[in-house]
């Protein structure tokens, strides 16, 4: 082999790059069954089926935003009942910190919505209309 030290250095660098997930976390990667950790929601059914909600809840909220703001539609009927078209509707059954936030942190998703919207995880004393 020619230029052996360089070649070995190259191979080592290659292996280090491949091992990135391990050293950026200092070997601290936790396997977690996230569905076991989420707080139990109130009520029986979500707005749609669970599977649908799990993958499409952001699309639902996005659609709600559009119909509420642009068309003034404030009620949304599904097979599970009639719901208020509002982000605060979710807090009727879901705990923000123990539900939405937990899963989002696990997934590293950061919805921008809370820059403006209220959620019960916030400490804002003036908000008292959510029961």
């Amino acid at each position, binding site marked *: 082999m020619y230029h052996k030290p360089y070649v070995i250095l190259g191979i080592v660098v290659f292996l280090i790059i491949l091992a990135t997930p391990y050293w950026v976390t200092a070997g601290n990667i*936790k*396997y977690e069954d996230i569905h076991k950790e989420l707080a139990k929601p109130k009520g029986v059914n979500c707005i749609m089926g669970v599977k649908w909600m799990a993958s499409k809840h952001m699309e639902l909220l996005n659609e709600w935003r559009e119909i509420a703001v642009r068309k003034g539609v404030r009620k949304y009927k599904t097979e599970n009942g009639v719901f208020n078209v509002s982000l605060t509707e979710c807090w009727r059954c879901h705990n923000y910190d123990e539900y939405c936030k937990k899963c989002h942190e696990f997934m590293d998703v950061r919805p921008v919505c809370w820059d403006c919207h209220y959620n019960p995880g916030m400490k804002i004393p003036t908000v008292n209309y959510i029961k």
Partner: protein
Amino acid sequence: MSEIMYIFYILPYVAFAIFIVGVIYRIINWANSAVPLKVPTTAGQQPTFNFIRRTWVDKIDSPSNKFWAFIRMLFEVFLFRSLFRNTKYYVEKGGKNADTRWLWLFAMLFHYSLLIIVIRHLRFFTNPTPKFVSTIEYLDGLVGVAIVPPLLMTGVIALVALAFLWGRRIFLAKERSISLPSDHLILFFMAVILVSGLLMRYIVKVDLSYVKMFALSIITVHPPSPEVLANLHWLFLIHFTFVCITIAYLPFSKVMHFAGVWFSPTRNMPNDNRRKRHVNPWDPNPEVPILARVGIVVDGQVFKSKKLDWNTYYEMYKDQLDEIAENNYTIKPEL
């Protein structure tokens, strides 16, 4: 049914085993081949008299020592410097060189987008996710923040760049004629991976919580529960399978240029031909200057250059020459 899903759990380990062994094998294979001649390409002024100006660009393009050769290599690897000097020769335009640096542009866009995409994928393989991964994703999504989920620039850029790079091989006649099936194959893999990934994020929504649990189970070597496997979306499985196939295919493919570029003699040799003697590693007696020898020795064999005389030449190629002569051509030595 559910047991068969464990194939998807085994797949990445097989793919990475092939990838790692294959890449190391090819690197060692390259490292074992000698470079008999000094062949740096130079595109700048090499050091001569003090009064001949030599800028830092000349030092990069015509490095005179190992340090500058290393800098040149960094420019090659991170900025694709030789591609930046890409031009295309047109006979029909009076032998003019046309600027084809758009190839450099799209190559840069494609590679760097892909790098950022790979870094962003770390969010599936780490728990908790390191800060820099979130920051990169945040910056990536700044432009498209109005969309839910935020439109990430790099995904779009990579797709556009891929379309150009593939379109180049499909629609330009010259490039099409030099494209091999393997050139298209790797582009096809990249296209499937990119399109399935983008579909998954923006159109066909997938339950990512199970995807992440699956990814964590791979990286922590903790076999996933049948529930996780059962909840994986078919589009994710396509995406994932193609990623594994591509990873296993890399050592056999032209993508090995990520390692090959470091072995490229035209890039990694300093241009010091006149100052330092380059010794052919095959040369059995390097002490004797080449010009003083009878012939050149390659791998133990002596190659002499001798002048052919007409009669020997005619004997060697008698059949063809006679056939040409039969067609009323005059065959005679040129004097």
